[in-house]
């Protein structure tokens, strides 16, 4: 089996999730990676979604952040207010998994606008939970497709703080958590250099060259001295990922076929864990 670039990105992200870690998960590739980790090396990872589902173990991937599957398989379902206050701001989240439209040289994220805020060229969806995840999780992992318009010298708008202007500017702004520890793309992994906090490439995915990365990056990207090559996805990783995706498509196409509202009378039964 040969993994696609996107599969490699997901698998590399999954590998970074330590066993039994508490992870605040965004929808899309972060969710896919976190669940892949849970299904492979980190069965006791605790996944928290901003919809208030804590300790979810979905058998198929949710299509939205508030999917019923998340609620049914959760240890507990709390209000969205509580998930941000007691669980994220309360300091219980070790890893925040984020995507964004743009990430810059100092790992700042933009999901607000391309262009000027007042009269934007492109109006993006906005902050959502990201500013506080980036500020309050003990560390964050960023997943993004590698592209010059996405990995930019400086983001048009800092939605969520990375290392701001580099150096100790994150700390000086009052942020007490560790910040982004890795940016995982479909080409490579970038990590913040220890003093400057500039993102440098530390790991190239199989078959990817320095030149490919340099051309796809919006700044003069540097490479770590001890640059390594990403371990090729194992058969277990790849087959687990593909099976998860297959089951997801299957489950959600069944749903679509059966959309007639139906009535069940016992709410308790409905929501209890299987």
């Amino acid at each position, binding site marked *: 089996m040969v993994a696609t670039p996107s599969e490699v990105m997901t698998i590399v992200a999954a590998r970074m999730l330590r066993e039994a870690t508490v992870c605040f998960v965004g929808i899309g590739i972060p969710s896919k990676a976190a669940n892949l980790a849970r299904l492979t090396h980190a069965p006791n990872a605790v996944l928290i979604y901003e*919809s208030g589902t804590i300790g979810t173990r979905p058998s198929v991937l949710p299509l939205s952040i508030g999917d019923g599957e998340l609620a049914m398989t959760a240890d507990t379902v709390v209000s969205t*207010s509580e998930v941000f206050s007691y669980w994220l701001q309360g300091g219980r989240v070790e890893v925040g998994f984020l995507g964004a439209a743009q990430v810059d040289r100092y790992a700042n994220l933009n999901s607000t606008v391309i262009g000027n805020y007042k009269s934007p060229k492109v109006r993006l*969806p906005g902050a959502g939970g*990201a500013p506080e995840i980036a*500020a309050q999780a003990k560390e964050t992992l960023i997943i993004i497709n590698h592209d010059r318009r996405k990995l930019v010298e400086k983001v048009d708008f800092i939605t969520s*703080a990375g290392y701001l202007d580099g150096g100790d500017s994150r700390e000086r702004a009052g942020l007490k958590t560790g910040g982004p520890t890795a940016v995982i793309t479909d080409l490579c992994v970038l990590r913040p250099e220890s003093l400057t906090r500039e993102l440098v490439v530390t790991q190239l995915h199989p078959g990817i060259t320095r030149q490919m990365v340099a051309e796809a990056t919006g700044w003069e990207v540097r490479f770590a001295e001890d640059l390594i090559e990403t371990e090729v996805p194992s058969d277990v990783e790849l087959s687990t990922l593909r099976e998860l995706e297959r089951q997801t498509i299957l489950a959600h196409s069944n749903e679509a076929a059966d959309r*007639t509202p139906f009535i*069940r009378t016992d709410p308790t039964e409905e929501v209890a864990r299987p």
Partner: protein
Amino acid sequence: MSNLSSLPDAIRSHVHDGDCVALEGFTHLIPFAAGHEIIRQEKRALTLVRMTPDVIFDQMIGMGCAKRLVFSWGGNPGVGSLHRLRDAVEKNFPHPIEIDERSHAAMTVSYTAAAAGLPCGILRGFLGSDLAAHNPNIKFIDCPFTGERLAAVPAIRPDVAIIHAQRADRAGNVHLWGIVGVQKEIALAAKKVIVTVEQIVDDLNAPSNACVLPAWVVTAVCHVPGGAAPSYAHGYYDRDNSFYLAWDEVSRDRQNFQRWMRANVMDGMPINGDA
């Protein structure tokens, strides 16, 4: 003394042009039917409040109901952009709308502050983010004990909050469950509350500590089965993911959008998922 009402009556009586109206539901239990009734009754100049203004706000904005939008994430979840929202913000169509943009955490703090009768709420937020510089509704205070800098946001106290729930009893007590989002908070934050429900039952028989809104805090309960479609109602029906995918195409073009709204919403047809 019952608060039971038809949806058209509830919207007519309690939603007025110029009002601040919150429609909440975090992916789950989105009050689509109520939003459509607001569109049909041609309410105008509303301040629309919602953490995740998804397809329902795209429709309301596109149909000209909104003067102002208070939100934290405006997208079509799992699909992409809201084209009507973008058209309003980027190209002032059908007219310009003002934007008051925050983060999810800050929105929940504004709701809980209002529910708790406070003028503002505090959070560790917006440090290093450009949002604070663009929004005068984000300020900072110093903790009087530690001196730490904390963000403060004003309470959001809508004129009307609208939510969808699974069930109410005949007295108008409401019970929702599953992903309950911020519905209790916004209901208690608002001056008036309209709740559409899937089902009216004789006895809620809600488990202990369930999410229940007593009848006396609810202005109107409207029996609207399917009122959350194409979103979902846990225990009743699933999310119509194909609708969300199809909406991207429907909403991209102004005329296409208006044609679809006329056929599916303005004529009073229930939304059926065949976008």
